[in-house]
Every structure is written in C-alpha cells, then in structure tokens.
C-alpha cells in the first residue's frame, strides 16, 4: 500500500481554484520532488496532505498509523519566545536528552542543545528542523522548500543529508522545491506542478557536462541535478506552460 495516495485532488480558496485533478502516490523509501512556479499550488498540496486545508474534491488517503516528519518552509520564532534547541526538539515528542543529542549529532549540528533557537544560523536552523522532524522515526518526511535561504553548497549539503537519512532509515521523502530546473539528484521522481501535474520524470545527472560545472561550481558533490521538463504532451485545457516567465 502507498504511504500517501492522492486521487483527483482539487483545492480551492473561495472561488480561487489552486489545484485540480492532482494524482500522486508515495511509496515506501521513495524520494519525490515536486517543482513548480510560485502560485502553482505546491504548498497547498502539502497542506492538504497534512490536513491543514480541506480538499474541495477528490481524496487523500494516508496509510493507517502513518508517522509524518514535517519540515516547514520557514519557522518564525517570535523574539519574545525563549526556547532552547533541546526544548524545541521535544516539542511534540516525548524523548530523552540523549535522544535529542544523538539526533542533533546525526544531523551534523552537535553541541547545540543549550543554545537558543534564535541564535542559530540559517543552515543550523534548517538542520535542527530536520533533526526534530526525524526524532520520532517517521515513515515519511515532508519538506516544504526546506533549502530556501541556503546558498548552493548549503542546499547541496542539506540534500546529501536527506539522502543519508533515506539510506539509514528507509523513510520516504516528499519535498517541494521552487527551483524548477535544479533538483536533488537522489530524487526517484520529479513532479512538475502548475495547478495540475504538468509532467513527471527523473532528474538527469549531468555531472560531467561543462555546463553543469559552470552552473553549480564544484562544491556540491553531485547532490544537485538538472530536471528537463517534458511538456510536449497534450492536455484538454488551454493555459500556457510558461515556466520561465513565471520564475
């Protein structure tokens, strides 16, 4: 059985339809990247999966007892709210200090337990978010533009970490990216969304091409890959597929 199965999903805010006829399945251990321009409904899809927004049509079924680890797009912690990394790690799960410490170590940010969340750098913050999402050993990891605000080497390191997580725990990964052409190379599938599923494919690893080097530099260790959109198929609707214009 699929971990997550979305059938013919439609999401609307008032009269404004943001998603229609979306089908999506996530199998155990799979890494799926969803790309799409701003306003394409990526975040709405994720919000529908976690139950934050009611579908206007269609169905979403989660495997019974599915444990979700969620990494939000950005987490603003108000200046007035003091919270240590350790307390944050225990936000929704009852875990020991030792578990927190080893989760942080596995995330590559040891010794942060006593630090205030507000004192962390962008990269440390994202890794703490990831470590917290992983602490109750989820079956699926949902990431909403988790690399936003990180530079390219930072994103690459973050992606390598997620790949490592999948290797170690076998947890499935569903992530959203606003980058249309550069995706995590370990993605098993890439789904391009623009109100509906425009195209679906696998990322092309072109690490040896000179263009690739020019584009990514050499510090990314093959964590990033290009995705070529294949929009030559026919839909029974007539809106333009203007990715480049929307970027």
């Amino acid at each position, binding site marked *: 059985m699929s971990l997550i199965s979305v059938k013919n999903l439609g999401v609307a805010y008032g009269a404004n339809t943001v998603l229609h006829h979306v089908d999506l399945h996530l199998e155990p251990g799979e890494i799926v990247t969803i790309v799409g321009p701003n306003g394409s409904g990526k975040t709405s899809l994720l919000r529908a999966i*976690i139950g934050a927004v009611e579908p206007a049509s269609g169905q979403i079924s989660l495997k019974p007892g599915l444990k*979700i680890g969620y990494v939000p797009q950005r987490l603003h912690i108000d200046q007035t709210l003091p919270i240590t990394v350790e307390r944050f790690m225990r936000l*929704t799960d009852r875990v020991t200090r030792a578990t927190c410490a080893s989760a942080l170590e596995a995330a590559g940010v040891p010794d942060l337990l006593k630090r205030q969340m507000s004192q962390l750098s962008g990269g440390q913050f994202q890794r703490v978010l990831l470590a917290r999402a992983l602490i109750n050993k989820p079956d699926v990891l949902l990431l909403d533009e988790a690399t936003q605000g990180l530079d390219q080497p930072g994103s690459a390191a973050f992606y390598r970490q997620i790949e490592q997580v999948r290797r170690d725990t076998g947890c499935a990964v569903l992530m959203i990216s606003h980058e249309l052409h550069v995706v995590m190379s370990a993605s098993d599938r890439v789904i391009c969304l623009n109100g509906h599923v425009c195209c679906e494919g696998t990322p092309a690893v072109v690490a040896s091409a000179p263009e690739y080097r020019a584009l990514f530099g050499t510090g990314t260790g093959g964590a990033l890959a290009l995705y070529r959109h294949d929009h030559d198929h026919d839909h029974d609707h007539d809106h333009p597929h203007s990715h480049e214009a929307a970027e």
Partner: protein
Amino acid sequence: MLDDFMTRATLAGVGVAFAAAPLGCFVVWRRMAYFGDATAHAAILGVALSLALQISIFAGAMVVALIMAVTVTFLTGRGYAMDTLLGVLAHSALAFGLVAVSFLSGIRIDLMAYLFGDILAVSRLDLMVIWGGAILVIALVVWRWSALLTATLNEELAYASGLDPKREQLILTLSLAITVAVAIKVVGVLLIAAMLIIPAAAARGLARTPEAMAGVAAAIGAVSAVAGLQGAYIFDTPAGPSIVCVAAILFAVLNLITWRSQSGA
C-alpha cells in the same frame, strides 16, 4: 484568617496573577496584546447586562468576553486587519457598555469599581470564584501546553503532528475570557491586559525556555499583587493600579539588569 480584607485581597490578587501569567505568555508570543484589551473592554458590557438582568457579574462578563473573543477569532482574515477589527470591536463594546450602564437608573453602581477594580471589597464568595476560575485556566493551559506551544510556533507543524491549531486557539480564547471575568474585581477592565502582558514581558529576559518564562511571570505577578496591595495600604492609593505600577517597575528594573549584564559580558 479570611476575615481580614487585606488577606482576601492578597489571595485574590495572587490567584489572578497565577492564571494570567501562563496565558499572558501566549498573548505576548502570539502578539495578541490588543486581543486581551478587546476582550476586557467588552466585559464592561457584560457587567451592565448582568446588573440589568440581575445575574452574577462574573457570568455576565464571561459570556460577553467569550462572545467577543470568538467573534474576533471568526472575523480575523476576512477583509480587515486584526488591529482595525479589534479597534472597532473593543471600543464599540466599551461604549455600548457605558451607555447601557447609564440606562440602569434604578440601580446605584460605582462604575469606577468595574473600570479599575475593587480588590479591597473582595468577598469570600468572590475569592472562591476567582480561585475556581484561576485553577480552571491553569488546568486548561497545563493540559494543552505542548499543543498550544506547537500551534504558536507553526500552524503546519501542529497539523502535521495531528493537532488542530484552530481548536488550540479556541482554548486560549476561552481561557482569556475566564481570566478577564475573574480579574474584573481585582484590577478592573482597563488594567486586565496589563496583568496579562507586563509580568510575561518582564520574565522574558530571565527565561531560556517557555516553561521558565511562564513560571517567572507567575512569580513576578504574585510579587506585584502582594507589594502593590501593601503599597496601596501604606500610601492610600487605589489598589488595582498600584499592583500594575509594581509590575511595571519590576519590568523596568529586570530589563535594566538584563541589559547591563548583556552589555557587560
């Protein structure tokens, strides 16, 4: 022991401080300060209605505060900015309340007692209501603490953990209405928001975790209540405002100390 009006007043003040402290932290974290004000201002309409209908002031104030809080929650994000909405509702409720009071010509009421509180006139029954309300609020907040905190930090995070942020918001709103209702007698509708916000804000610099902040806020609130009442007795000043003055002074002093220790380090 409860025969002494100062003892009753002190216990009433401490009860309100304990309930207001953890709630005040959420009010500060969620930037709902004005929300507390709006709920409190609406309570004066509740007072007027209770007097007209001859029902308990606590009940009347709580019902109106609750209606106000739920209305605000419901209307948020429907075309008006939160502060505009609260400005309209809070001041309208206060104005309607004051006008309603003027119709009650048959009853002699001391409006000042409801605007600024009348803590020295707290009866044994009042004390029971105040502590009953305070214990209820503390129990609600402790029970939902983790969920409230998660929903405060990030809505999606709450949903993904199987929580409903809207339900948590409602629990917070409900607690706020109860606190406002029981605090009217102690500090009055104009100063309730101060009891929510000032101790929590004063505790910020001393705390490293949310729980510590709530604990320190409770302590600061209790100290303010005790010292404010003593001050009011010695200097013959109004009790409610004196309590808020002590809290404000503690806020200033604690901030100065934190600021100095940070700039010295």
